[in-house]
């Protein structure tokens, strides 16, 4: 872990160096400007409500994502536990895939 911290330190020094060089070399001051909108005038706040059309995907993702919590340890012990481990895990995956199938039928994966 010490070596990792050392690497992070090296990166920190490097990034600080870039910012310091920029501060020294670039023209004084910071130009305040509006957001770049191909020259158009911003008519609304950038953070105004944003329609995320794929939010249904995020819910399916959360379910499948949790599968990983159990699947990483599973991968290590398959050879020890034997066929039962494979059957159980893929039955679980099968159940989750039924959910994916349902979401697909509902058109959750296509939003344009």
């Amino acid at each position: 872990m010490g070596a990792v911290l050392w690497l992070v330190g090296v990166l920190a020094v490097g990034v600080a160096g870039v910012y310091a060089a920029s501060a020294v070399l670039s023209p004084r001051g910071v130009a305040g400007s509006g957001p770049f909108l191909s020259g158009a005038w911003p008519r609304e706040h950038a953070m105004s409500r944003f329609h995320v059309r794929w939010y249904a995907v995020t819910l399916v993702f959360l379910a499948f994502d949790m599968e990983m919590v159990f699947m990483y340890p599973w991968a290590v012990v398959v050879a020890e536990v034997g066929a039962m481990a494979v059957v159980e895990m893929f039955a679980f995956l099968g159940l989750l895939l039924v959910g994916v199938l349902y979401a697909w039928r509902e058109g959750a994966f296509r939003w344009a």
Partner: protein
Amino acid sequence: MDEGTGAAAVSLVVSLAVLAYGAAALDAGLGGARGAAGAPLREAARLLVQGRRRTLVPDTLLVRTGTVLLPLAALLAATVLPAGDRPVLDSGVGIVWFNAMEVCVWGALWLVGWGVNSVYPLIGGYRFLAQGLSYELPHMFALITVALGAGSLRIADVVAAQREVWFVVWMPVAFVVYLVSALAMAFWGPMGEPVGRNVAGGVPAELSGADRLVFAAGRYALLVVVAAAAVPLFLGGGAGPVLPGWAWTAVKTVAVLGGLVLVGQRVPAVRMDRFTEFAWVVLIPLTLLQTLVVAIVVLP
């Protein structure tokens, strides 16, 4: 920190920097720039002397955090990869560590996209999240297939398990899926919509000067790391005739990296609303099938 680890850390920093520079130069060359070998250097110099600008009421804390997080995530993900004969961090859960660090890129892009208070970067950040929701699961299943084949989450064990036959030979689907997700992770080429031209450069559109330089460097470092990870995971690590291990690792890494850069220049962009459906309906069942095949093979 003992001597071997120290040497590994130094070689990691140097090789990451050299390869990232090489990737940037190759990309410039393929893009038709003259004097491509010096192009990244000229671009860095341009950004360093560039006047800084800022948008109206940005959340500077979030923007800086996101910008610096990008190279940091690449560096931390690289610590478990054996550059020479050993990695800097010989973790028993190296594959999960790699996965976790690479996921930090989600946060980095969204923070930058949100923080600058501008529409196009925000759209870029959202695009990357949609991309993440699509590529991450096939990617994880590819990694799990590798762990399953080796019976371990330690990357050194994965390399050792490939002494006789490389994983790419009997896990071709997982390998291809890994390469696709590698492009997506580094938002590169066909998966580069989060920084696409149709949103004026997307996430880094409002970054200038040092911020932009760190962001770009981090992206190239990320590309190098995802390419380098393919070598111990699928291509036998340092295995090969005549040459020493580190040389083979370097040769294979450069080959994969060159392939990714070439794909980035030659393949058109993929729309995420199409790719999401493809990923969930085709890639996930396909990788699961691959996992099943490997699971049956490793059964005693």
